[in-house]
């Protein structure tokens, strides 16, 4: 009569348990971030710090975890599509500046990709690492998708995106002041293009216009980077 322990074993390896584990770790991350305001305590990072050791200790294979939490990963695609609506909501902020905005984000995207690929190559990075680094400035779901398309690793790309966002959010306002950028649109655009949502958090602290433009920059940067990476890919 080992039916009870058998049932428990089945429950602990099912969808409900793994979804609870994921949502729970994430909620803890949200709680910690709100409480401490430490920028490094991103809910995504906290979840990784909890779940990765958990899988190691229990000996549960990553593949199993991934399969059981499919419900969440599936939403990555639709959430990128939904950004199209967010982009539309910000349209009124860019009237009269469409061409300048598209131009500067295009140049920024080009410089961002080329520089990260060049530096990685100088240090002798292989294709896997370079392809995971290249989309570092775009929002996580797009970056993961782009990395996967070009021979990189989605999870590495996700981590690089977070590092890039944290760093840009931290030093961005300082750099902009140093180089004498005073235009609100330019400030928001620079933060959103370089550091996606984490840059936008900083931009929102600067002002409503900066924040809205920064949110817009996330979307444009995603599209520009998706368009540019296939051309740079041969150098990976």
């Amino acid at each position, binding site marked *: 009569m080992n039916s009870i322990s058998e049932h428990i074993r089945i429950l602990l390896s099912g969808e409900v348990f793994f979804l609870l584990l*994921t949502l729970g770790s*994430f909620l803890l991350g949200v709680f910690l971030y709100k409480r401490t305001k430490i920028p490094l305590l991103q809910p*995504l990072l906290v*979840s*990784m710090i909890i*779940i*990765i050791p958990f*899988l190691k200790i229990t000996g549960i294979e*990553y593949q199993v975890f*991934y399969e059981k939490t*499919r419900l969440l990963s599936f939403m990555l*695609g*639709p*959430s*990128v*599509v*939904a*950004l*199209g*609506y967010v*982009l*539309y909501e910000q*349209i009124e902020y860019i009237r009269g500046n469409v061409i*300048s905005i598209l*131009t*500067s984000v295009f*140049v*920024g995207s080009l*410089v*961002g990709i080329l*520089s*990260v690929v060049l*530096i990685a190559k100088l*240090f*002798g*990075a292989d294709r896997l*690492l370079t392809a995971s680094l290249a989309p570092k*400035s775009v929002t*996580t779901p*797009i970056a993961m*998708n782009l990395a996967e398309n070009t021979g990189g690793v*989605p*999870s*590495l790309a*996700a*981590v*690089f995106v977070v590092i*890039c966002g944290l*760093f840009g959010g931290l*030093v961005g306002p300082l750099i902009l002041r140093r*180089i004498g*950028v005073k235009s609100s*649109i330019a400030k928001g*655009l*620079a933060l959103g*293009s*370089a550091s996606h949502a984490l840059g936008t958090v900083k931009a929102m602290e600067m002002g409503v216009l900066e924040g809205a433009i920064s949110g817009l920059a996330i979307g444009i940067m*995603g*599209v520009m980077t*998706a368009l540019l990476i296939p051309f740079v890919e041969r150098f990976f």
Partner: protein
Amino acid sequence: MIKGTFFILLFYLLGEIISLLLNGFIPGSVIGMVLLFLSLLFKIVRPEWLRKTATVITRNMAIFFVPAAVGLVAYVELLSNSLVTIFSAIIISTILTIIVVGLVQQALENKIGAKKK
């Protein structure tokens, strides 16, 4: 919510089909995003159909990355072996991106402003 979900999935599917025709050159989700944006702009789709669903999904986006991000577990060695590369590349490139976008945008705005005067 159902209407919003329907349209988001519809544009996702359209994006995936176009991506397939383009040999995966651009991810289907990104194409879907652009199509949705354009359809809203040209009033093919009404914003109020999407507002609720799109807001809920995008506000809580980060949770959807967790399963893939945990996949890092297989690359811990690669990460620790390439820390210098990773940090140099990200830090320098991020600084450059901020400077370039900020300066180019400001320069273009000033140019337009000067013309108007």
